């Protein structure tokens, strides 16, 4: 099972802070997005959205997320 976390406003777009998906083999961002509706897929793929795989920021396309992994989608921050 792959855990997906949606931070900030992505929680509203995804309809909740967390999803769990079964993956037979490690998947790419495109393969994950293919399971989302168009709006969520677009926001997840937006360059302002950062992605953390097991708590480490990843960039580009050379990563895969598989069973037991946690993938977090981090929209632009607004702290302080």
């Amino acid at each position, binding site marked *: 099972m792959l855990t997906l976390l949606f*931070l900030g406003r992505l929680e509203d777009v995804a309809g909740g802070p967390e999803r769990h998906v079964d993956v037979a083999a490690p998947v790419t961002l495109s393969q994950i997005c293919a399971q989302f509706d168009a709006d969520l897929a677009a926001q997840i793929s937006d360059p302002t959205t950062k992605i953390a795989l097991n708590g480490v920021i990843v960039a580009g396309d050379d990563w895969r997320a598989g069973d037991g992994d946690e993938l977090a989608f981090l929209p632009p921050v607004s*702290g302080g």
Partner: protein
Amino acid sequence: MRDVRLIERDFDPSREMAQFSAAHDAAGGIVSFLGQVRREAGDAAVDMLELRHFGPLTVPGMEALADRALAHWPLAGVMALHRVGQMRPGDAIVLVACAARHRRDAFAAADFLMDHLKSRAWFWKREHTAAGWRWIEPRDEDRADLARWAHIP
């Protein structure tokens, strides 16, 4: 001395400042910034504010930021406390303090820390008004503030 903490419950910034200034009473000067939950958003009254974080990144990011300040300015100490969870108007959100022998260093470092906590640290903020919850988007002004520090390694 570096004191970086996420705070889950309402805290007393004046007590934190008393402890920090007692620990740094030889420093000469201490600059602090205290952010409190505002009572209004535009024309609407805010009755609650919520701050979310991301466990694996938020505190390590704040620690790296404090280390950057300590490496650049001659500081005796840095404190950076940030609330998460749900807050009421008037509650403390963020408290930053920098102690230094020379006050200009303390001012610059506190200013630097706040600009980064506002637009680089891993926090997401939403406000509740009569119209419901609304996520706060980063502002262009915050990005412009940040650009002032591009020369700090």
